[in-house]
């Protein structure tokens, strides 16, 4: 099976040995929600020339605790600080959560395929995020907003569990205030003080302002959410061949050696995490593949 692989270039700061992390210092740390935080990381020993494409991921190492794959959530392209937004769900991400400014982590990357932002030029761009899935989509949003004239309408549809799980709330308000982007947020369960929409993110698709016949959709969230979102998009007229998703599997190496992230014929670390929907839909349709 053919898969989309955008050339990600050399394996980032680790250079020759792809399994060897490079030390990065925490320059800034922000608590986003009760279990999500963002780290800004700078290479120890001066600028390391870090550059990524939207949708790619790094392997982050917490000293002595272990390593996890985490999507980049900051601006794509060359940067001085590498940005990761992380949900603390296991021992390693909890260790990362305890880091303070000045602490050092190990970083390998960037790895994997990217949201095809060049291919989307001239089209409306619909980003649909579920939960922490907003983090891997944010670099794509930064890109299309920074190259605003190259794109048609820009729509962000974002579903969170509850109002207190909403990521990047202040930034969402800024995006919402722009006249050249539409942002809709919905929560599964409301709470006192919530005046917004309640429901699942798929319900936002039919009411969003974009031309489904000239749109490209990037979808990221839990697998079930992505399946239903793609279905809603298709029902609305966005063909599956113009829809991309980002997948998650266990990863140990990120370079195609460890075998953990296989999904049928593909390695998610190498051929993904971003896939064109019609190329992975048959695989996702098989239980426990």
């Amino acid at each position, binding site marked *: 099976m053919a898969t989309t692989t955008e050339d990600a270039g050399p394996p980032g700061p680790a250079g020759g040995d792809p399994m060897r992390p490079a030390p990065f210092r925490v320059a800034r740390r922000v608590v986003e929600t009760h279990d999500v935080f963002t780290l800004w990381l700078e290479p120890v020993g001066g600028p390391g020339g870090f550059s990524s494409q939207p949708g790619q991921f790094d392997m982050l190492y917490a*000293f002595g605790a272990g390593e996890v794959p985490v999507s980049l959530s900051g601006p794509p392209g060359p940067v001085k600080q590498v940005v990761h937004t992380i949900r603390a769900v296991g021992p390693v991400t909890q260790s990362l959560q305890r880091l303070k400014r000045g602490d050092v982590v190990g970083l390998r990357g960037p790895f994997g395929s990217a949201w095809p932002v060049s291919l989307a030029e001239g089209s409306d761009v619909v980003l649909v995020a579920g939960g922490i899935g907003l983090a891997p989509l944010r670099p794509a949003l930064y890109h299309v907003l920074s190259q605003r004239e190259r794109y048609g309408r820009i729509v962000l549809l974002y579903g969170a569990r509850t109002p207190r799980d909403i990521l990047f709330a202040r930034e969402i308000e800024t995006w919402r205030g722009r006249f050249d982007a539409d942002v809709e947020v919905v929560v599964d369960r409301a709470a006192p003080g919530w005046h917004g929409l309640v429901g699942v993110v798929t319900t936002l698709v039919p009411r969003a302002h974009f031309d489904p016949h000239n749109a490209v959709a990037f979808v990221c969230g839990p697998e079930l959410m992505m399946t239903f979102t793609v279905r809603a998009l298709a029902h609305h007229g966005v063909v599956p061949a113009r829809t991309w998703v980002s997948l998650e599997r266990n990863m140990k190496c990120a370079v195609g050696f460890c075998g953990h992230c296989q999904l049928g014929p593909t390695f998610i670390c190498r051929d993904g995490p971003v896939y064109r929907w019609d190329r992975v839909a048959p695989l996702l349709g098989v239980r426990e593949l």
Partner: protein
Amino acid sequence: MPETAVETGVECAIEVADLDPLLGALRERGFTVMGPLLRDGAVIYDEVRSSADLPAGWTDRQEPGSYRLQRSDSPRLFDFTVGPSSWKRFLHPPALRLWQAHREDGGFQVVDVEPPPPRLAFLAVRACEIHAIAVQDRVLLGGPHVDPAYRARRAGLFVVAVQCTRAGATCFCASMKTGPRAGAGYDLALTEVLEAGRHWFRVEVGSERGAEVLAAVPHRAVRPGESAAAERALAGVAEQMGRTMETAGLPALLRRSPEHPRWSEVANRCLACGNCTMVCPTCFCTTVEDTGDLAGRTAERVRRWDSCFSAEFSYIHGGSVRPSIRARYRQWLTHKLSTWHDQFGESGCVGCGRCITWCPAGIDLTEEVRALQASKRRKEDRRADA
């Protein structure tokens, strides 16, 4: 005895007594020689210091779930087939410290701790195993990233093949087109001949390095009739194999069969022990273990062989992607025989039969494949009848 000009593609002969000079010539060139030894009731691979270490007079009997060594009346040195070891344990070690990290200046530094690996020479590599090494080459060296640990061990490897003069009951390399005859991928290839009371080796030279090493060992030209004697020793090996597998259309059949009832049936017998993946010469999956000392000063990362038969293998937050043994067996078999083609352009199975012999439940992948193929055929027959 007159020596003959040694070059690639030439056939020579050496006597049994000249094996030790061959080992010596390899050691003089800085090689550590790994070869077959008797240990724990099996022929395994480890360092060979002299020909006396080789399992002379031993042979093996293999069946699904069964491996037995037997005394033979013959002085043959290589009268067995493959055991539980494979050469991957030297090229892609079962456990390897990738690095250590030391805290300093508020950060940490990552340093190498493993000494550089020895230069390796393998003695008695079978045709299927030469192909298995080539399969792992494509996984660990052939992609956009290269595994430096594998590259360091693989570079400069010297291969002394042994042509199989018998096949086991779980062998099926002829079906996988990886043997029984080693045609390339070696520096020297030995054919053991014991005929009319004479015990000697035909030596095929496969590389310039092989020629250079053989030139340093007492050797001679093959005499009239000796080539024919060596060919007689190899005759009939393919027909002796106890297993076969029909590979035509197999990748596509497996792609179409993820919901076949046979997966549930085999899952009832499979213990998910992972033995098949440990003995397999091409299985490459690994995990990493990150540990730290109690003082929090030093940490290290160890890479270990892993198996797609464990529930942890596919664990992500929320649970395992493949909680059932059915899904794990399907992953293993489908990867070997179908998706490996998509990923690396060839089969991941070389037909060595280790997974059959060393399965404690005696699960035989050739039988599982036949079951999947049979129901396909039944369907086609019904269509033809209609």
